[in-house]
């Protein structure tokens, strides 16, 4: 039980990669990549969790109260920002690919370009 959150992170990562490997649509592929990236949030926050710990915000909470790891929270924040902006960039590239190849199926694009 105590390793379940880590297993969930691993599963989310692998299921996202499975989606990327089998995708028939570039937009679906981009979203699968986002699913894979989401596993890192689960992993980071699981690593930083402290049993019975409060949020690392000490407004109205006595200093020295047991709190969860603030470092992994700030890393997740960076992670989310990068994930979203890269997703936007990939979707824009996907639009360009559709304009050039008239398809969003990665297999057909490969055939067209040779």
């Amino acid at each position, binding site marked *: 039980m*105590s*390793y*379940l*959150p*880590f*297993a969930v992170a*691993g599963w989310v*990562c*692998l299921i996202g*990669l*499975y989606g990327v*490997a*089998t995708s028939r649509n570039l937009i679906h592929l981009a979203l699968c990549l986002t699913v894979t990236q989401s596993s890192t949030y689960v992993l980071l926050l*699981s*690593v*930083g*969790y*402290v*049993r019975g710990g409060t*949020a*690392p*915000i*000490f*407004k109205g909470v006595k*200093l*020295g109260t047991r*709190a*969860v*790891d*603030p*470092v*992994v*929270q*700030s890393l997740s*924040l*960076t992670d*989310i*920002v*990068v994930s979203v*902006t*890269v997703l*936007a*960039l990939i*979707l*824009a*590239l996907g*639009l*360009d690919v*559709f*304009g*050039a190849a*008239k398809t969003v199926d990665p*297999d057909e694009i490969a055939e067209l370009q040779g």
Partner: protein
Amino acid sequence: MTRRTRIVIFLTAALGLAALFGWAFAGLPAFGNGSHVYAFLLNHVAVPERHTTNVVAAIVFDYRGFDTLGEEFILFTAVAGVVLLLRPVEREDPEDRGTTASDALRFVGVGMVGAGVLVGLWLIAFGYITPGGGFQGGVAVAAGAVLLYFVSNYSAFYPLGHVDGLDPVEALGAGGYAVIGAVALVSGLPFLANLLGPGSVGTLVSGGSIPFLNWASGIEVAAANLILFSEFIREYLHPARQDG
């Protein structure tokens, strides 16, 4: 490579990766029992040192502030890439389409635009005291503003989401962060060193440079997200690539 071969190769690789995950996770401290020294230290020194009650904000804008500078520029570069890729063939205002909102939806929705933007600004303003911060608040501001398009029409949203107007704002946010860092350098301190007094705990005047960095990133994130929204909305209304 056929689809079948690809799936077989993927499953083989995935099994290997799963095994490595299992090995790695077995070496981690059990869930909820690990307490990293760095985390413990920051939870105890951030408030006395920086007078910032939100320790996550103190890490983002101070202890790991240099990291956030990189993040700001990842955001900036990605948005520049999207604008470049989706640039219109000829710049013209797309005609209004999708004006399907009912009067009731408009009435409630326009009110929510103000509420959404206000919540975003509040999240930025108090980000280093209570939960929130420049990144979270910036997204909320942009989401509030883009609501105007969904409940109204493009011409109502256009003045807010115009790339020519938002570009300088985004640059101000990203550049402002770097300038605040450089001010420390000019004062003879390391880059991005927190150079103002810590102020009093739990008030808006706390954290030294943190409020300024927080606002710089809030402005950048809000402008960057609005640019992204508005580029994709314009692309939807007026596809530039119909002729290939």
